């Protein structure tokens, strides 16, 4: 069964279809939220930006003629995030530890604790990476954007994106060696 594209859903919403918006919201609810959460220093900042991104999308109301809706919303998120950091001179630091994690019923308590530790370690290492590298990593992993889309969004060449992503992965692999 062919799934309705994000762009079509958004266009339907622009014509007044609220259910179409609910569908597209559900598709990007988590990825957008996580992108902001991993990029911001606090959960409150992330939630504020999250709400602002959706408010912008709702208020725009212009039908989508070309381009990707996914790239569009993450572009808005990135721009708002940059504005926020510039305005408040904030530095990206690690968020408070979030203990929410999927519990694998087959794992021992030690194994579960190991997973939680690794997960939290990755989050901390991710935000400790240079901003350019973590941004490229998140845009790829959370937004699911291609290298070309990321290059267009952050206004650099494709090779630069590749290079930043390689550095990010190499650094994370080195830091997370005990978990891999």
């Amino acid at each position: 069964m062919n799934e309705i594209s994000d762009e079509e859903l958004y266009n339907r919403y622009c014509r007044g279809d609220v259910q179409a918006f609910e569908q597209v919201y559900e598709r990007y609810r988590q990825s957008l939220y996580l992108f902001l959460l991993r990029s911001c220093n606090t959960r409150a900042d992330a939630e504020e930006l999250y709400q602002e991104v959706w408010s912008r999308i709702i208020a725009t109301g212009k039908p989508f003629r070309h381009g990707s809706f996914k790239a569009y919303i993450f572009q808005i998120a990135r721009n708002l995030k940059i504005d926020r950091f510039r305005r408040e001179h904030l530095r990206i630091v690690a968020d408070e530890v979030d203990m929410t994690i999927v519990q694998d019923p087959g794992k021992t308590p030690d194994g579960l604790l190991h997973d939680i530790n690794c997960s939290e370690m990755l989050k901390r290492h991710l935000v400790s990476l240079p901003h350019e590298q973590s941004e490229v990593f998140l845009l790829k992993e959370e937004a699911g954007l291609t290298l070309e889309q990321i290059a267009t969004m952050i206004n650099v060449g494709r090779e630069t994106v590749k290079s930043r992503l390689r550095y990010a992965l190499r650094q994370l692999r080195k830091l997370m060696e005990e978990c891999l």
Partner: protein
Amino acid sequence: MSDRRKQPETPLDDHPIQALYQTTRQELPGAELDRHILALASREASRRRRRWLFPLSSAAVILLGVTLTLQLVEPPELAPESEELLLEAPDSKQRARTSEVPHKSISMPAPTAAKPSMEFPQDSTAEMRQAPAGFARDAEPQNRQIQRTDRQEARPKELLQLGRQKKDTREIDSDPQLWLEVIGQQIASGKVEAGQQALTEFRKRYPDYPLPEQLLQYVE
């Protein structure tokens, strides 16, 4: 730099790191936040629907109004041409065209004292200038009549006859030229006796009016 070059190139898809990252993807926005955003979207959607309501309803009302008006106001039927219209001059172009058409009916001569002619001169005003002073008064209305006759002949024959039938007899009586024309037509159509009676009547009314040569033989 040289150390960096020696290192093996890291693949862009590092599956263990990606898999580990996927285990961190647990957080979700709060339910309150979801409700707030969805409510905002709903309000905006209903505002957009209302935005179309007024132009759409206005367009529908205008369309309905125009349709009803067009149905109620029927195009005016072409009224049968009145006598006035029948005898009214056609446009100048048609007049010019008819002046080239040879006269079929009995043409009335210009009232010259010397010899009434059966054919009108092309330039009747020139003829009028040559006419004796005594005829100037009579010639003026006659000249107008000539022009009208010309115009009448430009009409289809049937319409002209219909117009003539309807024409008030008093108008014929008061216009000697028109009267003579009617008499000429009567005689031409075979009603010689009626024509002669009319001619006698005419002579009584206008004893000095010059008669066309064709009608002279019918004078009793």
